[in-house]
């Protein structure tokens, strides 16, 4: 998940200081991905090193402000213009666990599937409740929670598919 681009996109709206970026990021994404302030300053330092942001003086309370440089603005525009790369997935512990369960004598892969399904549906219930409790009009936060809802749903669909495949292979069909 790109904190870097998220912060940079917020700086397009005007100069901000670190804590302001932290709370802005969290508010806009429905508090789904909390950031710690340290992470924000590390990211700002990296962005400054790469010439994407620059310090922009201090506000009345002495907070150091950052602004996006022209290169930074271009970087954000590219981010909006391009699709998010998802081609090299991280190692998926669940897929690995299921693949290994299939070959084990004393593990029923269907039980592994069901345990995961229950856990994922519980997460879905949690996301759904959080989304339904949002104040009307908080579309940004609703979109983020929708993303979690749909990702969890996709996982359950995949688990359903795994189970059907396991049943078929147990019944002697090849595929």
């Amino acid at each position, binding site marked *: 998940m790109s904190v870097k681009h998220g912060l940079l996109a917020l700086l397009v709206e005007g100069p901000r200081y670190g804590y302001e970026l932290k709370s802005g990021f969290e508010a806009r994404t429905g508090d789904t991905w909390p950031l710690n302030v340290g992470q924000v300053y590390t990211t700002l330092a990296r962005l400054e090193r790469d010439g994407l942001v620059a310090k922009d003086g201090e506000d009345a309370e002495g907070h150091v402000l950052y602004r996006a440089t022209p290169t930074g603005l271009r970087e954000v525009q590219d981010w909006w213009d391009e699709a998010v790369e998802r081609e090299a997935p991280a190692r998926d512990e669940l897929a690995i666990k299921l693949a290994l369960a299939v070959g084990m004598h004393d593990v029923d892969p269907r039980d592994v599937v069901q*345990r995961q399904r229950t856990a994922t*549906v519980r997460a879905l*219930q*949690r996301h759904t409740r959080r989304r339904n409790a949002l104040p009307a009009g908080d579309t940004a936060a609703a979109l983020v929670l929708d993303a979690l809802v749909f990702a969890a749903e996709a996982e359950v669909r995949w688990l359903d598919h795994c189970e059907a495949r396991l049943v078929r292979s147990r019944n002697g069909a090849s595929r």
Partner: protein
Amino acid sequence: MSTPVLELRAAARVHGTGATAVHALRGVDLQVAPGELVAIMGPSGSGKSTLLTLAGGLDTATSGEVLVEGVPLSGLDRAGLAQLRRRSVGYVFQELNLLPALTAAENVALPLELDGVRARDARARALRALDELDLAALAGRFPDDLSGGEQQRVAIARALVGERRLVLADEPTGALDSVTGESVLALLRSRVDAGAAAVLVTHEARLAGWADRVVFLRDGQVVDEARAEVTV
């Protein structure tokens, strides 16, 4: 806990006998309280729809017991079951919920009229039910003039008109797009929050996410349950 609106006690349904017997449901225990939305998930043939037909008195358990508002269905004769289906239980199916020759209001009034309520009273109560669900504007329209989502919302109004407190929904958002489907679920959820009880059969986990409990069936048995955490 108050009396469950629906209770299954070791409910089983076997089709056929001997070697060819099919055990559609094998001893399921389930309680659904007022204010509770329970979703049933499971692969095809796991017994989801059988459970729903037993719960609604559309089919009879081979063994075990089904109780609606505390009344054992096994003790009812045909007429008693028919009355229960009219008075206590509302259904929402995937499609073909509304009679095309009747307006939305007439569709909602129908179960009341079948139960002997005078046409005028039935109509007034139907209009009130539609109004409660913000559907008053649809009252005079025929199903053909309603979108899929509007039809399903009217079907929910009909399922809950009168004294009925148990809604049985089988894939109620079947052919609807995801946002319209959500609005149907939101309406069902709001009726449950107002005190109804509902059982929702679905294969879509996203819809099951609206439930207080999700019961997983496999081969006619309950294998697991996901209970939503109570948030303060």
